[in-house]
C-alpha cells in the first residue's frame, strides 16, 4: 500500500501574529515554524501506525514550499515515512497547491492520501477536497478513526451532532483530525535516520493561481473586560440582555 501524507509548514500555535510591508505579508520575524499540527499528529502518525501493522506499506511525504520548509520535512521524516517530495514553489492559493500535489499523486499511484483537517495559518480546509476532485476519487473529511484492509477503508467521521462510520474503496483522500492517532515525538534513531532519507525537490507544474491576498488586518482589540460583582448576577443577566443583546 502506498500512502501520501501532505505536510504544511505553519507558525507555532503561540506565535505572535503580525504583518509587514503595509499589512500585505505575514511577519516571519522571530516566528518558530512547526509541522501543521493536524498534518503531524493525526495524518502522519496514523500513516506510521498503518505501516507498523503492514511493513510493506510505503509512506511518502509531500509539501509545497521553498527551501526553508526543509527542516519541517526532516522533522516529519524523523517521525516516520520513507521519503519526501518538496515541490519548489511558494503559494497561498489552495487551487494552485492542490494542482501541484495532484500531479505528484497521479504520478505516484497512491492508494491513500492523508491531509490534516486544515492548516492553522490560512484555515482553508480545502486541499483534501480539491485533491479528491482533481483525482476524481472519494473524499472523507474530518476523520477521527481509520482502518484499512488494503482494498476497503473503514472511516469514522464527524458529522453535525454526532459521528458516522463509512466504508470506501481505495484510492481515497482522507482529512484527519483529533482521535485518528496518538501524538508522538521523534526519537534519536528516527532523527538520525531522517538525515539520510531521500528528499526530492521537484519543479512545480504549470498552474494559475485563482486568488491573491490583498491585505491582512488584525481584529480590533477588545475594549477591555467589564467586571461584574460576583454577588450581583442579576446585573450580568441585564448586561447580556440589554447591552450585549445575546440572550
Amino acid at each position: 500500500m502506498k500512502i501520501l501524507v501532505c505536510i504544511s509548514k505553519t507558525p507555532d500555535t503561540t506565535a505572535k501574529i503580525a504583518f509587514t510591508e503595509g499589512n500585505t505579508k505575514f511577519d516571519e520575524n522571530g516566528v518558530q515554524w512547526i509541522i501543521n499540527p493536524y498534518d503531524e499528529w493525526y495524518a502522519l502518525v496514523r500513516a506510521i501506525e498503518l505501516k507498523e501493522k503492514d511493513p510493506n506499506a510505503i509512506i511518502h511525504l509531500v509539501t509545497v514550499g521553498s527551501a526553508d520548509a526543509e527542516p519541517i520535512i526532516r522533522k516529519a521524516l524523523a517521525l516516520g515515512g520513507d521519503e519526501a517530495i518538496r515541490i519548489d514553489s511558494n503559494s497561498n492559493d489552495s487551487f494552485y497547491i492542490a494542482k501541484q500535489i495532484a500531479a505528484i499523486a497521479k504520478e505516484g499511484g497512491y492508494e491513500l492520501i492523508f491531509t490534516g483537517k486544515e492548516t492553522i495559518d490560512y484555515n482553508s480546509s480545502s486541499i483534501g477536497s480539491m485533491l479528491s476532485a482533481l483525482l476524481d476519487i472519494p473524499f472523507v473529511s474530518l476523520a477521527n478513526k481509520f482502518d484499512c484492509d488494503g482494498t476497503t477503508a473503514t472511516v469514522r467521521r464527524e458529522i453535525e451532532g454526532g459521528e458516522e462510520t463509512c466504508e470506501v474503496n481505495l484510492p481515497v483522500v482522507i482529512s484527519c483530525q483529533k482521535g485518528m492517532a496518538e501524538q508522538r515525538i521523534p526519537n534519536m534513531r528516527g532523527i538520525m535516520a531522517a538525515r539520510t532519507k531521500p528528499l526530492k525537490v521537484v519543479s512545480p507544474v504549470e498552474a494559475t493561481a485563482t486568488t491573491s491576498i490583498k491585505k491582512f488586518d488584525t481584529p480590533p482589540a477588545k475594549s477591555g473586560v467589564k467586571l461584574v460583582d460576583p454577588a450581583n448576577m442579576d446585573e450580568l443577566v441585564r448586561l447580556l440582555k440589554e447591552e450585549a443583546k445575546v440572550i
Partner: protein
Amino acid sequence: MVLVYIDQADQQIKKSSLEAMSYGAAIAKKLGCDVAALVLGTVQDNLADLGKNGAQKVYHLKNESLNTLDVKLHSTLIATAAKNVNANVVVFAHNINGKAIAPAVAIKLEAGLVTGASSLPNTENGFVVTKTVFSGKAFASIQIETPIKVIAINQNSFGVVAYENTATVEEINIPIPAASIKITKLEKVEGEIPLTEASLVVSGGRGLKGPEHWSILLDLAKSLGAATACSRPVSDSDWRPHHEHVGQTGIQIAPNLYIAIGISGAIQHLAGVNRSKTIVVINKDPEAPFFKAADYGVIGDAFEIVPALSAAILKMKSTA
C-alpha cells in the same frame, strides 16, 4: 446568478444554511443579479419559505440517497446544477459539510475559492472577500481572480436576514452517479444542541475540579438553552466527551455568547472561541489570561457564581 447550497441534517435545513442564503441574497443585490437556493435530498421544511431568507427560486433535486454527505456525489451534482443555471457565485455555509464540498466544487467549476468568509465581498474594484486566518487572530482580504467564485461563509457571522418573499420551487433532474461511500453506522449525540450550530455555549475547564461538579454547568446551560463545551485538559482527562473539546485542536466555534467557567484561557483555547460575539469569563484567578479576551468578567468562586447566574436567568425568563 448567485446559487446558494442549502445543507441539511436529519432532513432539517441547518441554521448556517439560512445564514448562507441571506448572505447569497445580499451578494446578488450587490451584483444586481438573481439568487437561488439549491437543495439536495428530501427535507421536511417548506422550501418556498427559503424566500423569507432571500431566495427568489429554489432548485430541488429530490432524492433520499442525497440526505447524507458523499463529497464526490454532492460536489458533482452541485457543480452540474451551477453550470446549468449559469451561476457566477456559489455560496456555502462554512460548516462540516460545506467545508468538505465547496473546495471540490471550486475545482469542478475552475473557480477561485474563499472559505471561512467573514463579510460581504467588496466589488468596487474586482471581487475581494475577507476571511478569518490564523485561527481567528487575523483577517485576510482575498481577491478572487476567476469568472466564477465559490465562497463559504463563516457560521454566526452574517446572521439570518428576514425577507418578505416566497420562493418558487422547481424540481430539477440531474442523473445521480453511483455513491462513492457506504455509511454503515450512525452515532448521534441525543438530545443535545450540536456545538457548531449553537448560538449560546457554556464551557468548563479544570477549575471545576472534577466531572462530578458538572451539574452546575449543565443547569446553567439548561436555563439558557445553551450547548455545553469544555477545554482540552477536561476532555483529555475524560471528564467530558471529546466532541465537547473546543480550541485550536478541537472544534472552533463562533457563538453569540460563550461563557467560560474555570478556564484560564491558554492561547490554544482562545483560538477555538475568539470569534464568539460576547465572551463571559468566570474565574477565581484575577490574573487568568482569559479576562483579557473577555467582554464581561466575574472574579470569584464558580461554585457560588454559576448557580446564582442560573437562578438570575430563570428569574429574567419568568418575568420577560
